């Protein structure tokens, strides 16, 4: 493998990191590649991609809460300015270090006056939903970059418990398009359990819904709480359906792969399983006896 291929492999490893283990994976990769100079430059794009797709959370400077680093939060770099990320809740933007995961150089960011009332209403409703159903959740709500009347709700909840060898991440994203009157959403759950093993749960769930006219024509705050009620209902149903899937896999697939005990409900009689061999041996030894006599 040449140097470029090694960096590609390193990037692929990083992008596969389970929740909360990117630093462990990075340490392993550093040891394996053992060329810090080329690695540092080479894996930066992968770290950035990981942070954006995994909804990395960051302490927002000057606030007591976190916001989400994602494509929706990214303010594209221009020739004059470096890439920055926006937190619409505090109306600030900041630089973000993809390795140290720290925000700096916070500056005021004026929201778009037309979309802000609805975005703010969605934010309020989402934060209420967040505290009702997520144990350690973070949510950010953005006005879409590419279109007016389009909004993105992102939710992430992480639990890292390395001393008990497990970690989990729940990500939800909903794009609310008031031009098309629909919601496109996805829910992604990842769990890693690694005590004397490596077991991973990975789920994807995509959803789409046409918004009823009554939802769209209401005031921002009433419309937003109706949208969140739909999301709450859908996510609750999804979580319950996961239970059914678990049961189905446990009852059908797991049992179908290997029985707990044979049909006889008894363990194997190994002496009988050995039958032909034993018999063969006895014959051989008796033959020997005849031969000797």
């Amino acid at each position: 493998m040449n140097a470029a291929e090694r960096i590609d492999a390193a990037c692929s490893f990083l992008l596969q990191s389970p929740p909360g283990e990117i630093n462990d994976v990075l340490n392993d990769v550093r040891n394996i590649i053992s060329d810090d100079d080329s690695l540092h430059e080479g894996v930066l794009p992968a770290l950035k991609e990981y942070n954006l797709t995994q909804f990395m959370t960051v302490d927002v400077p000057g606030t007591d809460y976190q916001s989400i680093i994602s494509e929706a939060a990214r303010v594209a770099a221009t020739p004059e300015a470096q890439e920055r990320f926006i937190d619409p809740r505090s109306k600030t933007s900041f630089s973000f270090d993809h390795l140290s995961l720290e925000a700096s150089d916070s500056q005021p960011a004026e929201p778009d006056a037309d979309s802000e009332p609805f975005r703010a209403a969605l934010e309020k409703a989402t934060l209420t939903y967040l505290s009702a159903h997520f144990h350690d959740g973070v949510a950010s709500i953005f006005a879409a970059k590419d279109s007016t009347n389009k909004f993105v709700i992102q939710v992430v909840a992480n639990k890292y418990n390395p001393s008990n060898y497990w970690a989990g991440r729940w990500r939800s994203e909903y794009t609310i398009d008031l031009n098309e009157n629909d919601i496109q959403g996805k829910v992604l759950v990842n769990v890693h359990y690694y005590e004397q093993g490596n077991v991973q749960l990975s789920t994807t769930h995509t959803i789409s819904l046409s918004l009823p006219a009554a939802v769209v024509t209401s005031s921002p705050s009433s419309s937003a709480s109706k949208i969140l009620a739909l999301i709450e209902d859908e996510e609750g149903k999804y979580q319950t359906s996961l239970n059914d899937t678990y049961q189905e896999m446990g009852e059908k697939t797991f049992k179908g792969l290997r029985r707990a005990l044979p049909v006889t409900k008894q363990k194997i009689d190994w002496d009988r399983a050995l039958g032909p061999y034993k018999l063969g041996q006895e014959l051989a030894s008796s033959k020997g006896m005849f031969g000797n006599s």
Partner: protein
Amino acid sequence: MADLVDSMLDLMRRLPPTRTEENVTALIGICPEYADDLLGSVDQPLKLRTDRATGKEYLACDYNRDGESYRSPWSNEYDPPLDDGTIPTPKLRKLEIAANEAFDTYREMYFEGGASSVYLWDLDDGGFAGVVLLKKTMTPTTPHEPSGSWDSIHVFETAERGRQAHYKLTSTVMLQLVTRKGSDEAEEKGAGNGSKSAAGWKHEGEVSLSGSMTRQTEQDWPILDSSSHITNTGRMIEEMEIKMRNLLQEVYFGKTRDIVYDLRSVDDLEKARRQRELQKELVGFIKR
């Protein structure tokens, strides 16, 4: 450079089990000089092959590999053929044939299908070692039926001590379960429940549970003749697989589910919080 191998093994314990083969190949590409260490310590899904002589299926892994060829336990032949491929001594081969028959019975009784293979080899100190492999795959007949696979790798070492033998067993089970869900089914269910809001949603998704767990045990068993090694390892492996099946059930269907519920609660946490506060107030009120 033991710590380099440690880093590779630590990495493999973290990366998705569904991509083990691809990642092992990449690691070997980066450090070709550690290929043997890696192939010897990272368990990969067993490959199903067909014995050209007998037409019977057998399982390929690092233990029956010589170069690019794999030895079948049924015909003792390498495929592609090798003139000087490593084979067990005649005495051990006899035991290997018997072990394959015994574990084929075991496979049929517990797995009701699939394939099994046993490979034995002599150790330098006079004892011998072996590996018992079992694999079953379930392929769905419709896209929304769950699919899955079970791979067992039981590696053992034994040393005779008079009329006793000491066994060291390392068992790994790889288990993969996948379920796909589509819109039709969800809508049917939604309609059946008469739920209004569910009817408008379109869903599509996949749930994948995959991984491996490893356990070890050491035991002493009496031996009467060489066939005792088969009954002894048979009992140990049966016991171990029963234990590991319970463990897998607990981790796959219990632990990972609990973690999902640690992330998100179906019930309203705020309501529960308010209720607790109200209760506290009431208790305080009664006390006064």
